[in-house]
């Protein structure tokens, strides 16, 4: 009864990796209690995640422009397919088993039956996340050639390399859902799929490399850690690997700013300027408000039911603010929000209104670097086409030669 069907099985993690992560409390929640905010009452489950301030970069937030059809999942073609899918479900096959697995908090694996919309949501979210890693190489890659010391240069190369690696892990996970990486890259290149808007802001000074590590990677952490428990196995496993590897990213960002704030006046001004420019976009990374009224019947609710998303955007954002304010004080940078203050009653920091008009504007393509980022990515891909073709041609020739010599 063995079925010779090509199978995609991706994102397995060696036992040693799981052990490592568990020891750091990402999965087991038994980490260093000092690292978790004792004040947070946003969602007790968040605190149970343990110390997350030293894990890394992740853009798994699934941000959707409400004015656009998202993708195939909101078109007539999809509806037809979904209707077909629903029929299949109601005939008593795939739906029951999927629901039972989700209800039991079991992982869904690549060849399991799953609702088409679950698959679509995952493809979009994982691809968006992978694209963010790949596009996210550019703002810092921009500084490799100018890093002010050899130590910083080595760190930056290694970090940008990690981002490439994380993009690859995530494309792998997406491919288990039946899409080809080439297809996903095409969707990125022609703008049909998004990446995190944060990378549409420029890196103007060396301090921006610090701010990206500290604020952007720090914000990404808030999304990333819960996704280690995502219901889709390959995505969860990719995230565990990413978590494990990125433990140095935020720390190196903090260290850059720490050094600058203890340096010359010009260096301090550089660090403050970077914090001024990156704070608000970092807060916006969590996506639009989705608690209270905003969550009803919406995208967040469905993703939560499926175990694709574990916490609401607003809860994650609040926890991020609570985590970063003491760090900013330690650094000596002033966060650019006059309304930022501790609220004893809520047990959280209050903060000002995010400029959502700017967020949507950048998401829709009118940010400082949108065109540049995609043009850069497309150019690299197009200039490499002849190389990829050559490798294919050589592989075909070799296969033919092997066949010939065997005959």
């Amino acid at each position, binding site marked *: *009864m063995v079925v010779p069907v090509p199978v*995609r099985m991706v994102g397995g993690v*060696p*036992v040693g990796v799981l052990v490592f992560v568990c020891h750091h409390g990402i999965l087991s929640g038994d980490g260093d209690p000092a690292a978790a905010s004792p004040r947070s009452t946003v969602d007790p489950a968040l605190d149970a995640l343990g110390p997350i301030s030293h894990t890394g970069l992740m853009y798994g937030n699934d941000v959707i422009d409400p004015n656009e059809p998202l993708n195939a999942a909101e078109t007539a073609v999809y509806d037809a397919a979904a209707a077909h899918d629903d029929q299949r479900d109601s005939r008593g096959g795939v739906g029951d088993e999927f629901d039972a697995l989700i209800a039991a908090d079991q992982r869904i694996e*690549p*060849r399991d039956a799953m609702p088409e919309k679950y*698959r679509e949501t995952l493809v979009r979210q994982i691809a968006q996340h992978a694209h963010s890693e790949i596009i996210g190489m550019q703002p810092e890659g921009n500084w490799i050639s100018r890093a002010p010391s050899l130590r910083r240069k080595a760190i930056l190369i290694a970090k940008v390399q990690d981002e490439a*690696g994380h993009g690859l892990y995530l494309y792998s996970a997406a491919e288990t859902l039946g899409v080809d990486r080439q297809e996903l890259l095409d969707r990125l290149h022609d703008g049909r799929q998004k990446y995190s808007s944060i990378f549409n802001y420029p890196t103007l000074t060396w301090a921006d490399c610090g701010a990206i590590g500290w604020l952007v990677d720090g914000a990404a952490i808030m999304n990333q850690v819960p996704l280690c428990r995502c219901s889709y196995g390959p995505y969860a496993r990719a995230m565990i690997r990413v978590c494990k590897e990125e433990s140095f990213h935020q720390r190196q960002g903090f260290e850059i700013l720490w050094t600058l704030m203890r340096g010359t006046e010009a260096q301090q001004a550089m660090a403050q300027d970077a914090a001024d420019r990156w704070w608000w976009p970092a807060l916006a990374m969590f996506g639009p408000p989705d608690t209270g009224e905003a969550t009803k019947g919406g995208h967040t609710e469905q993703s939560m039911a499926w175990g694709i998303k574990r916490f609401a955007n607003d809860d994650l954002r609040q926890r991020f603010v609570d985590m970063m304010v003491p760090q900013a004080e330690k650094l000596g940078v002033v966060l650019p929000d006059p309304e930022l203050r501790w609220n004893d009653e809520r047990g959280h920091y209050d903060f000002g209104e995010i400029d959502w008009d700017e967020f949507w504007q950048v998401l829709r393509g009118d940010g400082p670097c949108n065109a540049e980022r995609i043009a850069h990515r497309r150019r690299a891909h197009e200039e490499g086409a002849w190389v*990829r073709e050559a490798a294919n041609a050589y592989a075909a020739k070799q296969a033919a030669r092997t066949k010939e010599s065997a005959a």
Partner: protein
Amino acid sequence: MSGATNPPRTDSHDPQAPAEVAHQERSWPLWEVFVRGKRGLSHVHVGSLHAPDATLALRNARDVYTRRQEGVSIWVVRADDVTASSPAEKDSFFDPAADKVYRHPSFYDVPEDVEYL
């Protein structure tokens, strides 16, 4: 019969995809990567990557999956060459093992004072 549970390709539902994204360029094939973490352990599946041939797949696996000394040995296997059991057959494949409790040592009653048993 396995086809029923196989994921349909996502782009088959994407109205924009098929016509516009006809590549002249063929994608590099996909390879599954297995890494032996250290001596004494089995190779474990860690993920996948694209490469034009086995030699480059092995090199790419080294750069992508063992940057932090995660391995002492790597296997790469063409994803197309993996034959897998089907979820549809899960019950008939794996459930029959559930009632064979006599395969496990704890099934047997022996006097408590017998050593080395």
